C-alpha cells in the first residue's frame, strides 16, 4: 500500500519540478484529446507551443502578442497571489478588471478631447481605484459581517458584466458611433492611446507595470514586514493574531492590492490592445490569472514565467484554431487541465511517498 508522509518542509526541488511535470502531462493528455478529435496530436502541440514563436510566417505577428497577453495575466496574478498566500480567496478579479477599465475610461472620456500628457496617468490611477473599490466590497463585507469573500467577489463579476453592458450600450457609448454600442476608440486619441513603446514588441505600459509589480511583489513578500505578516496569516492564523497582526488589515491589504492591480490591467487593456469599451472587451483574463498564480507557485518570478506560458497557449490556441480547425474551447480545457495536473503533482512537494503496509483511511 502506498502511504503519504508529510514533509517537515515543502521540498524545494519538487516546487520547481512539479510545474514542468504538469506541463508535460497536459501536453500528453492534450495530445490524446486532439487525436480523439481527429487532429494530428504532434502537429497540434507544435502549433500551440512552438509555432507562435518560431513559425517563419506567423511568428512576426504572434511574437508581440506574447507580451500583450502576458501583461494583464501577470499583473492580475501577482495581486491574486498575495491574497492566496494569506488564505484570502479573491476569485472575482474579472469583475475588478472590468470595473477598472470602465472607471478609467469614464474619467478619460470626461476630458475628451484633451491632449494633456497628464490624462493617461490620471486614467491609470482611476482604473486602479475602480478595481480597488470593487474589491473593497468583499473586503468590507468580510471584515464587518464575516461574509464569504469567494462568493461575494464572484457574484460581483456578474454585476460588473452588467455594468459593462450598460456602459457600452448607453452612458459611455460613442456619440460618433452612429448608435452602435461601444465607447470612443482610444486608439484614435493619441494622448491616451496605450501604444507599443517599442514597435513590434507588444511592450505597452501594462507590460511595464506588470514587470514593476513582479519586482515590488518580490520585495514585499521576501523583505517587507507586511509580506511576512501576510504569509504568517496564511500559514498560521492563530499565531499571526497572537503576534499582533490584525486579520482585518490583512484582508483590506490583500484585496486592495489585487483589486487595484486588476483594475489597472483593465485600463491598460482597454486603452491599448482592446481599444474601446465594448460588451465583451474582457477576455476572461481575470479567471485565467488564477491558473497563472497557481502555476507560478504564488511566487513573483514563477508567475512571470507562468504568465508567459499561459499567453503562449492563448496565441497558440488561436493559431491552432486557424490552421487545424481546432475548437476554441479546447484551449480553455487545456488550461484547466494544466491547473488540475499541477494540483495533482503538488502532493510530491508536501509529502513523501512511502511504500508500506497500511490501510486507506
Amino acid at each position: 500500500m502506498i502511504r503519504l508522509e508529510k514533509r517537515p518542509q515543502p521540498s524545494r526541488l519538487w516546487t520547481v519540478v512539479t510545474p514542468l511535470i504538469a506541463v508535460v502531462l497536459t501536453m500528453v493528455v492534450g495530445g490524446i484529446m486532439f487525436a480523439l478529435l481527429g487532429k494530428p496530436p504532434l502537429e497540434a502541440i507544435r502549433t500551440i507551443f512552438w509555432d507562435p514563436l518560431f513559425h517563419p510566417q506567423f511568428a512576426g505577428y504572434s511574437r508581440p502578442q506574447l507580451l500583450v497577453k502576458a501583461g494583464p495575466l501577470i499583473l492580475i496574478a501577482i495581486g491574486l497571489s498575495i491574497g492566496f498566500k494569506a488564505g484570502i480567496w479573491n476569485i472575482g478579479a474579472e469583475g475588478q478588471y472590468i470595473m477598472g477599465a470602465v472607471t478609467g475610461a469614464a474619467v478619460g472620456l470626461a476630458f475628451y478631447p484633451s491632449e494633456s500628457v497628464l490624462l493617461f496617468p490620471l486614467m491609470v490611477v482611476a482604473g486602479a481605484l475602480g478595481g480597488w473599490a470593487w474589491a473593497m466590497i468583499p473586503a468590507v463585507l468580510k471584515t464587518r459581517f464575516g461574509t464569504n469573500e469567494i462568493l461575494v467577489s464572484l457574484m460581483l463579476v456578474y454585476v460588473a458584466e452588467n455594468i459593462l453592458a450598460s456602459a457600452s450600450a448607453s452612458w459611455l457609448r460613442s456619440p460618433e458611433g452612429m448608435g452602435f454600442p461601444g465607447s470612443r476608440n482610444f486608439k484614435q486619441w493619441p494622448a491616451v492611446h496605450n501604444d507599443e513603446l517599442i514597435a513590434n514588441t507588444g511592450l505597452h505600459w501594462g507590460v511595464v507595470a506588470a514587470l514593476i509589480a513582479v519586482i515590488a511583489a518580490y520585495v514585499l513578500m521576501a523583505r517587507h514586514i507586511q509580506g511576512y505578516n501576510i504569509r504568517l496569516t496564511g500559514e498560521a492564523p492563530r499565531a499571526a493574531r497572537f503576534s499582533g497582526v490584525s486579520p482585518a488589515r490583512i484582508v483590506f491589504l490583500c484585496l486592495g492590492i489585487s483589486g487595484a492591480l486588476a483594475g489597472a490591467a483593465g485600463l491598460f487593456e482597454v486603452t491599448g490592445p482592446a481599444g474601446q469599451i465594448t460588451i465583451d472587451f474582457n477576455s476572461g483574463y481575470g479567471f485565467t490569472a488564477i491558473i497563472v498564480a497557481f502555476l507560478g507557485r504564488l511566487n513573483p518570478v514563477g508567475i512571470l514565467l507562468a504568465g508567459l506560458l499561459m499567453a503562449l497557449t492563448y496565441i497558440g490556441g488561436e493559431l491552432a484554431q486557424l490552421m487545424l480547425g481546432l475548437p476554441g474551447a479546447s484551449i480553455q480545457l487545456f488550461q484547466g487541465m494544466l491547473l488540475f495536473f499541477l494540483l495533482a503533482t503538488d502532493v510530491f512537494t508536501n509529502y513523501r511517498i512511502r511504500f508500506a503496509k497500511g490501510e486507506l483511511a
Partner: protein
Amino acid sequence: MDPVLLVASIMVSATPILLAAIGEMVVEKAGVLNLGVEGMMITGAVVGFAAAVSTGSPVIGFAAAALASAVLSLSFGFLTQVLLSNQVATGLGLTLVGLGLSALVGASFEGVRAPGLGKLWIPGLAEIPVIGPMVFRHDFMVYVSLALVAGVWAFLKYTRAGLILRAVGEDHESAHALGYKVVRVRLAAIFFGGACAGLGGAYVSLVRVPQWTEGMTAGAGWIALAIVVFASWRPLGVLIGAYLFGGVTVLQLNLQAAGAKVPVELLSMSPYVITILVLVVISARGVHGAPGSLGRSFHAST
C-alpha cells in the same frame, strides 16, 4: 401576470439550483468544499443534452448527465482526498475544466432542439383549481428535486449513515479515531454532489431553455453554493433559498418582458445583488452552522 403561471414558472426556474444546492449541501456536510459546482452543472447540461438528443429520451439524458458529472466530480475527489490538494484551488480548476470540456463537446449541438419532457399530472391533485396548475402539473424532475430534499433531510437526521457523514464533516480527526472511513465517506458524498449538480445542469439545457449554448448555466452553480450558506446547511433552508432565488429570477425576467422603466442591466444583475445581500444578512446574524472541518484536508498521520 397570472399568479398561477408565476408560481409554476418559479418552481421550474428554481429546480436546477435546488438540485445542485442539495447535492453540494451533502458534500459540505461531509466537510468538503467543492467550488466546482458550476463546472459539474455545465458538464451535466451538455452531456444530458447530447444524450437526450441522440437517444430521443430525456430520461436517458438526465441519467447520463448525473453519471458524467459524478464521474467528473471524482477527479476532484481524487485530488483533494487522496492527493490532498487545496480544495478551493481544485474546485476552481474543476469549474474551468468543466467549462472548457462542455464547450468542446457541445459545439456540434448548438441550435439543436431538445426532445420535450412531458408534464406529469399528479392524478386527482392536478384537478384542484389554482393549486393544481401551480404545483401538480410539472415534469417529473421537479418532483425528483423535492423528493431529494426530503430524502437528504431524512438521511441526515434519522439514519446511522447520515450521522456518520455529519461526524466526518464536524470533526474528521475524531471520526477517524472512532474508526470511520473519512476518505471513503467524503468520496461518496462528492460523488452524490456531482450527480445532483449534473441533474441540475441537464434541467437547464433540457427543460428551462431548452437548448444548448456555451456557458449557459451562467453562474447557477455559484448561486447554488451561496444558497447552501444561506440555508445554514439545512435541507429546508436550501429549499427556501432556491425558491426565493427562482422567484427573483422569474420576477426580473417578467419585468424585462413587460418593458418596465428600469434598465435591463439593472434587472439582470438583481439576482446576484440580492444573493450578496442575503449572504450579508445571514453572516451578520452570526449563526453559521458550518461543519467544523469544512474545507480542511484530512490526512491520517498514523
